[in-house]
């Protein structure tokens, strides 16, 4: 190309200025350096910033499609943190775990798992500091390779015990801004309530909340007063054989209707973490009343589902007595290898009888290692909380 056409290039389209490594002769570079740094910066920025939306989407889709499993899946989350545009596109591309079977953003932990396959996780217990860490299994063969999901710390109080659940592996406290929810047990360790730090339906509360104005919900910075929304009640009982038989376990899922189990059913799905404001009055009036704190330490009953839609009840699958082995047996498909009273499988208990499908299973594989597998309509958070109750319950079983 002639020098003249190179100069013409220089004066042309913005983006062409930023091509440092394009093999230009030194004469042309002197022309570039005459421009002020501010202009050069602005020109540099425009090249990527002005990418056609379909092209950017194509690039981000490639990343999402190729980074299916963890650890590479972190690249998907990183791209979503770059700027608003990228975030919007990536959030649109990434499907919820219910449809993709994959956990991506932290909010995935509050969303139902897939319908026909279990998401496999494991829990590591640390007795010295009373903490529990939940990991997504990366490797079927070992329970050492995992992506950290949630952490819980046990806090014993005068009349109950709390397990505080958080996104932060190291700072697990209710005051921390990574607080997700908690599990509270009664004194005897026979009844538990799971609380979610935010409303299960992503902000649309029903009867208990006064003056919710749906129109006032804005996307940019939705706020809720910090609260505890009861989402599940778990109870343990001895079975008819007393302590000689496996205990009976029941979970009433306050926030999941039984109809969620239908083929076309829907389970509540949160779409984003809401910014909670403990001290200040919300700037966007979410609730007219300041004290719209929902803290129901009694077992919540049917408030968060429709009136004609009963809540989903999960019960533990009854083990079978194995005459030859002289023990109670459940088929964990190899996922549980150590006998323990804590081990369980829960199935949906519906009007037309119990489902065969195991919604959640939990059991011991090592000294302080337990596997946890869950699927729709439970979320990782709910499953984790249910499993934590199994650690605490004091019903002895010989």
């Amino acid at each position: 190309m002639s020098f003249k056409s190179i100069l013409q290039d220089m004066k042309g389209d913005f983006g062409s200025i930023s091509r440092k490594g394009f093999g230009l002769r030194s004469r042309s570079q002197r022309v570039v350096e005459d421009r002020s740094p501010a202009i050069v910066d602005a020109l540099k920025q425009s090249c990527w910033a002005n990418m056609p939306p379909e092209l950017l989407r194509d690039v981000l889709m490639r990343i999402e499609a190729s980074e299916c499993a963890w650890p590479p899946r972190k690249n998907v989350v990183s791209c979503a943190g770059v700027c608003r545009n990228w975030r919007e596109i990536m959030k649109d591309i990434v499907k919820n775990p219910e449809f993709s079977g994959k956990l991506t953003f932290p909010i995935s932990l509050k969303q139902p798992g897939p319908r026909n396959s279990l998401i496999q996780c494991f829990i590591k217990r640390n007795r010295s500091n009373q903490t529990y860490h939940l990991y997504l299994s990366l490797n079927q063969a070992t329970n050492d390779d995992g992506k950290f999901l949630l952490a819980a710390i046990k806090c014993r109080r005068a009349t109950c015990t709390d397990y505080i659940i958080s996104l932060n592996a190291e700072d697990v406290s209710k005051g921390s801004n990574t607080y997700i929810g908690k599990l509270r047990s009664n004194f005897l360790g026979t009844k538990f309530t799971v609380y979610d730090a935010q409303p299960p339906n992503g902000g649309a509360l029903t009867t208990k909340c006064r003056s919710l104005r749906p129109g006032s919900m804005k996307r940019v910075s939705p706020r809720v007063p910090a609260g505890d929304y009861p989402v599940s009640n778990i109870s343990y009982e001895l079975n008819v054989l007393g302590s000689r038989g496996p205990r009976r376990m029941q979970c009433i899922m306050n926030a999941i209707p039984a109809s969620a189990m239908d083929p076309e059913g829907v389970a509540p799905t949160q779409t984003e973490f809401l910014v909670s404001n403990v001290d200040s009055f919300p700037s966007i009036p979410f609730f007219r009343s300041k004290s719209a704190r929902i803290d129901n330490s009694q077992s919540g009953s049917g408030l968060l589902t429709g009136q004609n839609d009963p809540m989903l009840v999960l019960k533990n699958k009854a083990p079978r007595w194995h005459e030859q082995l002289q023990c109670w047996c459940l088929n964990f498909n190899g996922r549980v290898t150590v006998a323990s009273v804590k081990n369980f499988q829960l199935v949906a208990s519906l009007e037309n009888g119990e489902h065969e499908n195991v919604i959640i299973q939990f059991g011991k594989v090592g000294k302080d290692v337990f596997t946890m597998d869950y699927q729709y309509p439970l979320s990782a958070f709910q499953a984790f909380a249910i499993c934590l109750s199994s650690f605490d319950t004091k019903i002895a079983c010989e």
Partner: protein
Amino acid sequence: MTSSKTIVLRSSDGATFEVDEAVALHSLMIKHRIETGGADSTTIDVPEVTGNTLSKVIEYCKKHVEAPNSDDLKSFDTDFVKVDQAVLCHLAKASYYMNIKGLLDLSSKTIADMFKGKTVEQIRETFHIKNDFTPEEEEELRKENSWNLFV
């Protein structure tokens, strides 16, 4: 050569390139222009692309049209995108506007690979992207980022 018809492509900055029609048709956008522009259209304007980028695009099209079955096509492609990230950006945009699927796939994939393995900050810095989140959103993103990177 069966057909010696040539087309002139004109970039946004007035640079002109004479290419064989077969090469030009590798761009579906140009193909469409020719088909709808009538028999007299021998100069096609490509206002979305500068001369430098257009020159490279033509190089790509020539190789893929004239030697589509050559053994070194793969290595040609690999080397073709070993360029400065700004050049890559222009190539991707050009291939998008000019509707050249092969080049679009190639550059798009290369860009995707460049994003991988980088932190949020590194991506912003490398690709000069402005952080336009509010301080409140930044707070939420910090949480997400810590969780994301925690092993």
